[in-house]
């Protein structure tokens, strides 16, 4: 565990989370959420939990992004608030 690498990844995670809830376009929010998942995957791998990182990369960044896009295509792309 390298604390300055940790700090960098955690700052990026927080900024990704803030960007995902402030952006108006829901498709962009989905892509930013995928970036968030990959950063979390990097954090797990850096802390030594490689299996959790693998699951996060496949499920969080792969499948859930696709399911979000499928949901967006059946509803509206713009956020109301």
């Amino acid at each position, binding site marked *: 565990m390298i604390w300055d690498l940790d700090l960098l990844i955690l700052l990026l995670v927080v900024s990704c989370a803030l960007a995902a809830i402030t952006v108006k376009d829901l498709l962009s929010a989905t892509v930013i959420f995928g970036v968030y998942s990959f950063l979390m995957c990097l954090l797990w791998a850096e802390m030594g939990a490689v*299996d959790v990182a*693998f699951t996060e990369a496949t499920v969080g960044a792969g*499948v859930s992004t*696709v*399911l979000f*896009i499928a949901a967006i295509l059946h509803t509206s792309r713009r956020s109301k608030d």
Partner: protein
Amino acid sequence: MKLLQERTEKQKFGESLIIQTAVRMMVPFIQLFGLYVIVHGHYSPGGGFQGGVILGASFVLLALAFDLRTSVRYMSERVNNTLGNVGVLIYTGVAVLCALFGGLFLDYSALDAIIPLGPIAWRSFGIFLVEVGVGLAVMSIMVSLFWDLGSGGEMDEGL
């Protein structure tokens, strides 16, 4: 060249020849990697869940690059549902088999009574059987989740 132009005009919106060719070349390697992750879970990170998700993602990629009918042609809905049921059945079946042959529920060393390989080798092999069951179930459920959510349940158009 003329053929290519006619083909391009016939294509629906959002379909591209480059993406389709790339996906057609990538999908076998993705599926091979998914099987490797399931089988090699004893020695490296991974296992049934992750490998099943990768296998399911290859069919999702086919449905995204072509359309839903193409992915259904590669693996029909009936086969998909059967694989999911068989996956859960493998896990619970191994567990019940352990109980039937005189061990505890999910105690794989009891399976030594069927084929004598030694109880420790059976514990390793039982984990492998269970991972294959988990992989099949997770693959089937990921694919059917995408099919039903992406097409609104109609299974003909969509994404």
